[in-house]
């Protein structure tokens, strides 16, 4: 294996506990990741030594806090290969980022009869802001179909994106199907049609190297909490030329140059979007998470997860009655694996796995349009990260088999 997960695990204090008298196996990383000690230390260090408001005081602590906050912005710029820190806006997370784009860019550029194009595999946070924009503007929201294997149907995307399309918004990696979308290719024909491309990077940024310039995304949103950082902090990347033209969504302190009685002027990028005291501790701690991930290497993380998936996916597919959704080929799969066991509701299965110490998610995964499209009401999802091991994978498989056995001994008809 490319990376020593057994050693890396030791960086994550939370993993060393028993849940329901069994050692914890945490496989809900697509919901949120765990945090390494280095990240927790950074949070504590900030509050113990540097805490002050940013861009305000002239005293030493304020200067240190400001310098650290802006240093974190630079780390995030490097993390996604943006051209400039002017393009890195700190947000509350992906949801906030996508809402800002819809409110600010969307309201200024989408008119009656225009089209917004998304896909059937989007998370609710990449659906509802566009629905609302479409309603405000009497625009049309269109959905790109998926292939039978669960990939984005690129031919359909080419048809759906027309000269009327102003915005295309797509997830780079699905939080249910475990597929990665061909963003660069979609960017090409979106731009050719005169549309911009917004990318939901929530499930990709934690797991693979990101280069927003090469993929040619106009906006790219992601959250800190799925990449070893804290909750409540995320990034919206936007091309400088677009951000310059956009109006802020929130107004108040920190984002202004001059305030007159009837009018005010905004600071330059990126601060014009960051009204009020920002999540300083969150940004600095996320910077520490970036340091941690880059020291391991995003390419290494990606490769390791692919190996882990090629180990576990065939074992899951071999369980009689178990259906894996999305592609069946391991090479095309991220660490997100959704499945159901015939005759057993995913909630019952998730409860049984929890009794075995294995944490998975069951439900609609904030993707109701996708589940409806697949004809499902709910599914179980196991999602791996680089600190998961083959041993965790074995525990998952064993727990599923034990659950199946348990419910077969009852009178439930598990086939």
């Amino acid at each position, binding site marked *: 294996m490319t990376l020593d997960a057994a050693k890396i695990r030791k960086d994550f204090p939370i993993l060393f506990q028993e849940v329901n008298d069994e050692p914890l196996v945490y496989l809900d990383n697509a919901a949120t990741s765990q945090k390494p000690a280095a990240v927790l230390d950074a949070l504590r260090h900030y509050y113990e030594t540097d805490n002050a408001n940013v861009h305000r005081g002239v005293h030493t602590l304020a200067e240190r806090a400001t310098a650290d906050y802006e240093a974190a912005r630079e780390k995030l710029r490097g993390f996604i290969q943006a051209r400039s820190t002017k393009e890195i806006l700190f947000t509350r997370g992906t949801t906030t980022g996508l809402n800002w784009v819809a409110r600010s860019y969307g309201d200024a550029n989408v008119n009656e009869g225009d089209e917004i194009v998304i896909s059937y595999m989007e998370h609710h946070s990449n659906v509802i802001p566009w629905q609302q924009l479409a309603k405000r503007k009497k625009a049309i929201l269109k959905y790109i179909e998926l292939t039978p294997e669960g990939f984005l149907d690129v031919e359909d995307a080419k048809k759906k994106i027309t000269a009327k399309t102003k915005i295309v918004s797509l997830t780079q990696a699905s939080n249910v199907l475990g597929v990665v979308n061909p963003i660069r290719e979609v960017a090409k024909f979106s731009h050719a049609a005169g549309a911009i491309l917004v990318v939901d990077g929530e499930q990709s940024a934690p797991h693979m190297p990101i280069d927003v310039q090469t993929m040619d995304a106009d906006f790219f949103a992601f959250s800190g909490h799925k990449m070893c950082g804290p909750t409540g902090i995320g990034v919206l990347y936007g091309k400088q030329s677009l951000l310059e033209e956009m109006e802020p969504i929130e107004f108040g302190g920190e984002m202004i140059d001059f305030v007159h009685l009837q009018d005010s002027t905004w600071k330059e990028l990126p601060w014009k979007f960051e009204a009020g005291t920002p999540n300083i501790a969150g940004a600095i701690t996320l910077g520490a998470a970036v340091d941690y991930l880059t020291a391991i290497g995003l390419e290494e993380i990606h490769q390791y997860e692919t190996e882990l998936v090629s180990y576990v996916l065939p074992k899951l597919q071999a369980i009689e009655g178990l259906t894996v959704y999305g592609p069946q080929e391991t090479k095309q799969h991220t660490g997100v694996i959704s499945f159901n066991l015939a005759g057993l509701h995913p909630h019952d299965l998730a*409860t*049984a796995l929890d*009794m075995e110490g294995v944490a998975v998610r069951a*439900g609609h995964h904030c993707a109701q349009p996708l*589940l409806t499209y697949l004809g499902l009401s*709910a599914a179980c999802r196991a999602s791996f990260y680089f600190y998961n091991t083959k041993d965790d994978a074995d525990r998952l498989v064993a727990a599923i088999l*034990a659950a199946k056995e*348990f419910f077969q001994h*009852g009178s439930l008809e598990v086939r």
Partner: protein
Amino acid sequence: MALSKLDNLYRQVILDHSSHPHHHGLLDGSTNQIEMNNPTCGDVIQLQLLVKAGVIEDLRFDGSGCSISTASASMMTDAVIGKKVEDALTLSEEFSQMVQGNEKEDLDELGDAAMLSGVAKFPARIKCATLAWKALDQALTEKQETTVAKQLHCED
């Protein structure tokens, strides 16, 4: 094996009700109907009641859900058919207290539904057990003659 802990939740009676639910299907000529879903988990239940002179003469349910919600609905029909509306509402309150761990001395009136007391130790599953009873409450108190869709607001 750790799964023996599951026995506290999935007693045999519960598994029996979920695989062979009682009063499942549709009713001719109901007086009250309701459809309720739990948007976070996708469970849906439809209830049809025949209420005459303040008594629940018949009750049937349909829908899709996990074994806990199906068993709970089945047990509920057994517990409330033939009961006065007020008594059914009292039972519903008792059931709700029971699954939250506030056990009362006397659960006999709940019948098999009392077997769901173990749910109290599985907080994430309490909503599964209460879905049918919440639907019953609303169907009885809001007296709808046609089906109305309601949402049970909760997080999973």
